[in-house]
């Protein structure tokens, strides 16, 4: 009845969210008096998961190095069956959300995404999750015997919890691939919006694509990802992949800088799960000031370069 947690790796290296989902599973397991089994696919250091409380790691190496939602969910299903689990924990990454629905259907399980807290146990178990694009929470009651919980990024955090993880080579039956990857483009050397601790986001206040140098420089100094408001991507100033908000990518980072962004309701909805928000805007009436923790009323072209200089001295992004 171990809790099964799916961990993610990239180029063999465990992702930050792997430690978070394992930490969450461990807290749950302690409460339920059970253990945590982590599934690691194409991972070079599966033993590291023991640092965050995984009692057992099922380790699988595939012949192809990339994520395949159908294959991964099949492997996870076999792991669940082997461990006799009735609770599966996954992250909120794009890959996790891609496979979650497939996995839940295979397991005939209830699936709750965007979970922000530990479940509350009782006659019926309920979990708190984000809904209405971060404008509200819903307390969702689980009715199935098998459940998959998708933990919202940064909602729980990673908590060190040293145990000696028993790493077991897991050899599931792998079905034939029905989809093949024919091309991949990775934004190399730069943090992604989903994984970055800090996101530097800019809007129409920047006036034109030629002015993004100051944003990129600030992001580089912070080791941050760059993002933008919807009109900025609609006008082609920045790629669509940088568009954040209700109809773009969700952001749940530790620190979000909004530069020259007014703070429309659709923008705020998508970024609200971020912990600390800093706004830099010439207009003191901009709605973003109502949603932010810290604000500077000022001109981005004056403030941002000076701020970048000061941040350089902290040597944050130099790792």
């Amino acid at each position, binding site marked *: 009845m171990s809790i099964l947690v799916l961990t993610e790796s990239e180029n063999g290296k465990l992702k930050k969210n792997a430690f978070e989902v394992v930490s969450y599973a461990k807290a749950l397991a302690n409460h339920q008096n059970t253990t945590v089994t982590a599934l690691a696919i194409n991972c070079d250091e599966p033993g590291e998961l023991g640092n965050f409380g995984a009692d057992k790691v099922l380790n699988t190496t595939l012949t192809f190095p990339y994520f395949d939602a159908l294959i991964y969910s099949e492997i996870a299903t076999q792991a669940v069956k082997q461990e006799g689990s009735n609770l599966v924990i996954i992250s909120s990454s794009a890959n996790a959300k891609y496979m979650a629905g497939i996995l839940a259907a295979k397991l005939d399980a209830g699936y709750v995404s965007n979970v922000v807290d530990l479940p509350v146990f009782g006659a019926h178990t309920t979990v*708190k999750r984000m809904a209405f694009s971060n404008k*509200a*929470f819903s307390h969702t009651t689980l009715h199935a015997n098998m459940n998959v919980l998708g933990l919202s990024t940064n909602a729980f955090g990673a908590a060190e919890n040293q145990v000696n993880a028993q790493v077991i080579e897991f050899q599931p039956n792998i079905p034939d691939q029905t989809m093949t990857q024919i091309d991949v483009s990775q934004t190399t050397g730069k943090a992604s919006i989903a994984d970055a601790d800090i996101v530097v986001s800019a809007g129409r206040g920047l006036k034109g694509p030629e002015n993004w140098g100051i944003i990129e420089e600030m992001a580089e100094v912070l080791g941050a990802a760059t993002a933008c408001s919807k009109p900025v991507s609609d006008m082609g100033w920045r790629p669509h992949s940088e568009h954040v908000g209700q109809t773009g990518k969700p952001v749940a980072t530790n*620190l979000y800088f909004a530069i020259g962004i007014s703070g429309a309701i659709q923008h705020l909805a998508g970024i609200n799960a971020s912990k600390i928000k800093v706004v830099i805007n010439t207009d003191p009436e901009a709605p973003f000031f109502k949603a932010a923790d810290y604000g500077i009323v000022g001109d981005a072209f004056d403030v941002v370069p000076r701020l970048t200089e000061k941040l350089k001295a902290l040597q944050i992004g130099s790792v």
Partner: protein
Amino acid sequence: MKILVCISNVPDTTSKINFIENDTKFDKQGVQFVINPNDEFGLTRAIWFKEQQGATVDVMHVGRSDADPTLRKALAIGADKALRIDTDATDGFVVANQIANFVKENPYDLIIAGRESIDYNGGMVPGMMASVLGYAFVNTCVGLKIDGKEAVAVREMDGGSETLKTQLPLIIGAQKGLVEETDLKIPNMRGIMQARQKPFEVIAAKDINANTTVSKFEKPEPKAHVKLIAADDLDQLIDLLQNEAKVL
């Protein structure tokens, strides 16, 4: 090519979110409902296929008649037929299985659903349908080409994108990027008139129990006031971020 586009009926993005009946129900009072934006990108691509390569486009909703105006809008934009499975869309599991049951008897080459709806943000419907039906599936789809039975789809990932080749039948989770914003269609008078003549079927639901139910909603705590920092005192901002917020 037969295309099915799954449509969720959601509050307009500008809606104020409030709850009634002891925070157990969403307050629909004064709220304008629209086609879920992710579904609208998908519908627009479906109509592109219809116009450019020849296809029929059906739209499908699981829910009650209050969504009929939204389905009529989809017809006015260019869909050929509307289908509504008449039941409460209690959770994504119910929606996915209701549609999958219908599709088992009425197969499609391509099924498009939004990556997630902007109200409940469940994000499970397309994947569950794919699993139940055994169709290929590409989520967060930002590009799709179809040639005969072969499909090439671009999937947005965290920090990049990949191109996948597969065979129809296929389900995609649609989102922004699948079509340009300027491609989105506003219904014109002719489209609205034609929509009235188009078939609109209400289908009896199968008996499927929900795996999850919402017991209560909650609104986030009101935000504490923003701390304003003078534009010439950036050291203070850095100090606050390091020592008060502890995020640097």
